């Protein structure tokens, strides 16, 4: 059975061209970029080339890119780094209820260290109201962090609008961060148009390797180091650089820029076809997230009367890989905080399924899902005490 991967928001395969770019840096050009000799310097050049490629994708300067071990480190770095660098100026951090755990958990930690966290609500589509950000800012606010697009429901937030307001209100005093892990390489991004001071990325979401990411830091932004040690990344992020990973990230960014320039809407059309096919064949299904202001690749639905993990496992029996916002994927009993934040009742939150499409998704795959999914839903509904 040919397996069908529809979980591109969880991670993506490394593109073969990316893998090829990385290949020489494992066993041949293996030097440590901090080494002064030729082995070190050829690694150094590769890292700096990748830095340019990553910067170019988001309209940044190369020296504004700090490589990290992924999106989580970029987020932890941004939050801790800005908080500690500005603690004399203020202690208030504004964020939202639908952020990734890699934002919420560091915020939770900072709360135990004397910082105050304001967690803004969202509307039923998962949208943040820029007015609300604006009104939440006080004299003590040092940082605003709002994600660019949500990883579960795909809603794209009005970052540029928020950025403009934060700047007007707190120019030079408040740093504005966005977690763009889900959007880098998917949406055109220009850090200046977005008005952000910091932006988090992770290579494995855009056909690059796992274990590498970056934090964009606008020149002049006060930021303390997070990983401390040797003087790598201009003393901002210690540890021997993951050279092959960084090279792969750079190559992934070059390729993403090409895709974005081509203005291809193939993935969106497939996603819409999947949505239409499901809605036509299965009653009592609701769409989660915004109908239009969402990532092209993302489809998140709740299937009434059934539970998400049970759906997921049955799809997996058919070779179809998806994700769920039900408790069961997270190791806790609570369903996704994002689905609860958009006001979904627990029952529906437990019945959510996320399909995320990508580069290798085909129409045949989508049609197979459209054919298979109703039977699975039907089987589980027959088992459900909720379905009358």
């Amino acid at each position, binding site marked *: 059975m040919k397996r069908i991967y529809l979980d591109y928001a969880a991670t993506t395969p490394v593109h073969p061209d990316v893998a090829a770019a990385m290949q020489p840096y494992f066993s041949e050009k293996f030097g440590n970029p901090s080494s002064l000799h030729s082995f070190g310097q050829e690694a150094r050049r590769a890292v700096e080339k990748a830095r340019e490629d990553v910067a170019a994708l988001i309209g940044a300067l190369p020296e504004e890119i700090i490589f990290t071990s992924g999106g989580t480190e970029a987020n932890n770095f941004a939050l801790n780094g800005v908080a500690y660098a500005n603690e004399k100026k203020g202690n208030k951090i504004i964020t939202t209820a639908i952020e990734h755990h890699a934002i919420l958990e560091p915020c939770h930690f900072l709360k135990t260290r004397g910082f105050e966290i304001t967690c803004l609500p969202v509307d039923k589509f998962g949208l943040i109201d820029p007015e609300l950000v604006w009104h939440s800012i006080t004299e003590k606010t040092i940082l605003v962090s709002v994600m660019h697009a949500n990883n579960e429901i795909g809603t794209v937030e009005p970052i540029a609008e928020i950025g403009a307001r934060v700047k007007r209100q707190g120019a030079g005093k408040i740093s504005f961060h966005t977690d763009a892990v889900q959007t880098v390489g998917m949406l055109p991004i220009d850090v200046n148009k977005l008005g952000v001071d910091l932006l988090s990325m992770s290579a494995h979401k855009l056909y690059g390797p796992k274990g590498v990411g970056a934090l964009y830091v606008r020149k002049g932004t006060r930021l303390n180091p997070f990983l401390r040690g040797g003087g790598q990344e201009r003393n901002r992020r210690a540890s021997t650089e993951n050279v092959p990973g960084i090279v792969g990230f750079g190559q992934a960014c070059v390729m993403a820029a090409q895709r974005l320039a081509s203005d291809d809407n193939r993935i969106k059309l497939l996603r819409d076809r999947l949505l239409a096919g499901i809605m036509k064949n299965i009653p009592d299904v609701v769409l989660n997230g915004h109908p239009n202001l969402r990532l092209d690749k993302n489809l998140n639905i709740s299937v009434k009367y059934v*539970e*998400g*993990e049970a759906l997921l496992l049955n799809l997996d029996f058919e070779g179809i890989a998806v994700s769920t916002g039900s408790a*069961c994927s997270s190791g806790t*009993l609570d369903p996704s905080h994002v689905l609860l934040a958009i006001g979904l009742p627990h*029952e529906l939150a437990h019945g959510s399924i996320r399909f995320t499409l990508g580069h290798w998704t085909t129409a045949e795959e989508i049609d197979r899902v459209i054919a298979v999914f109703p039977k699975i839903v039907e089987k589980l509904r027959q088992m459900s*005490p*909720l379905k009358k």
Partner: protein
Amino acid sequence: MAGSYSDKVMDHFRNPRNVGEIPDADGIGQVGNPVCGDIMKVYIKVKDNIITDIKFKTFGCGAAIATSSMATELIKGKTIEEALKLTNRAVADALDGLPPVKMHCSVLAEDAIKSAIDDYLKKSTGVGLQGWTTHNEEHGH
């Protein structure tokens, strides 16, 4: 995590035994709630103190369905007294174990069965199970 489900769990999830309703059930028990993401409803038919038939309906994850299936299998044909001895551990053991975060499902299955027996006893003797309430508080939120 589902990834650490045993083959037995996957078997009972994929081909659950005793799914359905018993229209003229002698006892019906329902436990769990949508907040937890698990609801189990158990129907029993009792004759001469023996559980002659049992069916369930479950809204829940893989472990919830598998424990419902296994628990009903384990007490089918047993006396009420034997059925009452069924512990959540026994259900989990019969499934070759459950991931720690899923142990609450076995508790729910035990409760669902006790709840159905309680209902049967109330209906047949006017007195329910003594000293028993569901674990809802414990495994709930």
